[in-house]
């Protein structure tokens, strides 16, 4: 009897102890040492990173996906070697990135130092005070290469990382939506390069079904890309979803109707299953020779020129989207890299960002993933730009650009817009009804 009670207590005590042990082990999270750090050390090699950060551990939060994650990992490895720091990349699926970052940052003891902050939640994070300003670092001659400053970036892109007059982020990965067309198919059908959306529809109708290829392919799945394409179609007509303050619906019913007519008409010449195609699916279809034209984001189009993924390398030419010949436009897609306000290694974080977004590293990214840097000197690097087949198309599209929406209320609106486009493509709604849906969705701007 006593033995029983005694044993029962032993079990309880053991249980209590093990819970206590759980708590204890978890409390001893590692602190970061800042010994051996000097942010002002000159680079050991040309184009190398600034500073030495021996023993500093940094974490970078981003979405998962290659070649981009792998490319950044290489840059991080080089940075680690040069500075003595240890930067590791935490990549999660894009669709979970916001939640992961928001929850982690809200906890106050976040482990993140550098974050990829998407435009649609940049405003939220900046407002909440999760981001560290970088204005001072950007102006510090000891931490930047000679002549490097805020003025080294394309102003229209750099300004996207500004919140209430303070610079928080450094951009890279400039891209937009362009049209790719198969020169071989166009030639054999006696067609010239498509200059307007009207040409695209006409050519798609002619080429549809020839050589086992559909007329055209573009993203149709509601993952954000449909809204990007639609935004580009609006921009090409000098229209945009909302005003500068981001509170008023400025969508022109006329422009939206023309854009939606194009999307809906084009889908008739698209391969089966368009409405479940994300950017990568559309690019894969085109790369495998199953479409004569493709409307897609430029990073995805890199698949067309990659011999490992494409059966049609070298057969593509690119033009911007335009409704009227000579008046192209496109949505400015870019990435913002920001430093967490709670980071204990802000100097090291800046060192990596400067290193990563500057021309030398961006040239490597560009060649691996066909995106463009955000520095002016990037575009002067003929060796790189000559290898980017759609550079001209991107440049002329971005001569008339609207940046990707960066409003906290945008994700819900975007989903509603994409559903409206899908409904029109499926013939579930008329174009007019779908445009009306978009206006309804834009009422959410004030939420």
């Amino acid at each position: 009897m006593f033995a029983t009670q005694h044993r029962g207590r032993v079990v309880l005590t053991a249980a209590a102890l093990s819970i206590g042990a759980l708590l204890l082990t978890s409390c001893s999270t590692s602190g970061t040492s800042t010994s051996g750090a000097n942010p002002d050390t000159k680079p050991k090699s040309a184009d190398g990173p600034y500073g030495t950060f021996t023993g500093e551990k940094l974490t970078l939060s981003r979405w998962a996906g290659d070649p981009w994650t792998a490319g950044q990992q290489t840059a991080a490895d080089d940075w680690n070697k040069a500075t003595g720091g240890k930067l590791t990349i935490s990549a999660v699926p894009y669709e979970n990135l916001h939640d992961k970052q928001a929850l982690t940052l809200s906890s106050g003891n976040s482990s993140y130092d550098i974050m990829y902050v998407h435009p649609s939640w940049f405003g939220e994070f900046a407002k909440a005070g999760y981001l560290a300003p970088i204005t001072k670092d950007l102006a510090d001659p000891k931490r930047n290469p000679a002549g490097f400053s805020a003025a080294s970036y394309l102003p229209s892109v750099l300004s996207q990382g500004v919140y209430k007059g303070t610079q928080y982020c450094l951009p890279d990965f400039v891209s937009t939506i362009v049209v790719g067309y198969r020169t071989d198919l166009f030639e054999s059908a006696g067609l010239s390069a498509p200059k307007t959306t009207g040409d695209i529809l006409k050519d798609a109708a002619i080429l549809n079904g020839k050589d086992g290829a559909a007329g055209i392919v573009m993203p149709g799945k509601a993952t954000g890309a449909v809204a990007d394409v639609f935004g580009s179609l609006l921009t090409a007509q000098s229209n945009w979803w909302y005003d500068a303050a981001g509170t008023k619906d400025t969508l022109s019913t006329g422009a939206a109707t023309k854009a939606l007519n194009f999307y809906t008409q084009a889908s008739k010449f698209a391969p089966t299953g368009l409405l479940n195609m994300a950017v990568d699916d559309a690019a894969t279809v085109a790369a495998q020779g199953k479409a004569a034209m493709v409307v897609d984001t430029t990073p995805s189009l890199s698949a067309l020129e990659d011999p490992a993924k494409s059966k049609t390398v070298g057969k593509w030419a690119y033009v911007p989207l335009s409704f009227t010949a000579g008046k192209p436009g496109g949505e400015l897609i870019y990435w913002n890299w920001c430093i967490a306000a709670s980071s204990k290694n802000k100097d090291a974080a800046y060192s990596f960002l400067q290193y990563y977004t500057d021309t030398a590293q961006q040239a490597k990214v560009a060649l691996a993933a066909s995106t463009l840097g955000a520095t002016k000197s990037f575009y002067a690097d003929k060796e790189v730009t000559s290898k980017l087949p759609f550079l001209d198309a991107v440049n002329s599209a971005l001569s008339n650009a609207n940046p990707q929406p960066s409003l906290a209320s945008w994700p819900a609106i975007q989903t509603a817009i994409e559903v409206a486009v899908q409904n029109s493509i499926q013939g579930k709604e008329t174009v007019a009804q779908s445009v009306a849906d978009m206006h309804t969705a834009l009422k959410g701007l004030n939420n």
Partner: protein
Amino acid sequence: MTAIPQPKRKRARRDAWVIACYVVIAIFLVWVLVPVITVAVNSFKVPSAIFTSTPQLSFTPTLENYAKVFGELNFAQYLVNSVLVAFGSTALSLIFGVPFAYALARLPIRGREWWARIILFSRMVPAVALVVPMFVLFNQLHLTGTYWALILAHTTFNLPIVIWMMRSFFEELPPELEEAALVDGAGRFGAFWRVAVPLASPGMAATAVLCIIFSWNEFLFALVLSNQDTETVPVGVSSFIGSVSIDWGGSSAAAIVAIIPIFILGFAAQRFLVRGLTFGGVKG
């Protein structure tokens, strides 16, 4: 069923029937296995051999995809994390669940059926409802991003499974054995610890395997409560399925790497799988 002697004519009809049954099972097995085999085959292909319009059976196999999965994607780390979390939460669930189950099965406690209902109810709570509050809680305890966060989170679904399964295993034991232990001078705890637990250990092993399977496959908690050092296999695989890039070969290889250990375990616990998946058959 087939052992009963039957007249010849009937037997002929019976044989036809049995053959039909074998055919049905064969078709079903094809349907079950072909998708997995396809992905396994794709994992040995280069992209150009995957993207074809007709099934491509002859191709030069490559280990490139696996090299990538274990190389730059560091899948070994995901596997280690998954093993730690699965074993940790299974151990924790057994430590706390087995005594609870024994109490429900054998001991004179009040509200036995209420406990049973509460456990079943806890199986119905959607993970979405738990994950955010749990994040807030673990943050305050500075647990987020540690293995313990995932172990405790996975205990939320493993503990009820342990309780249900072990209860049914304990109930199957003849009570006389434990009563004999009392006569031999053991207390109630002695009867539990020295008689019931050893007798129920095959059931305990089966339960453990099931818990490991559930933990191995769990995604939402693993995603939200982990950090880059503690992410588990499903989180690793999911990074292939984002909307931004597609890598059929690499993701197929990752899927196969994730399936193999769990398939081996599933084989081992096959006999008990039914009981575990139905919460001990809600007694059956």
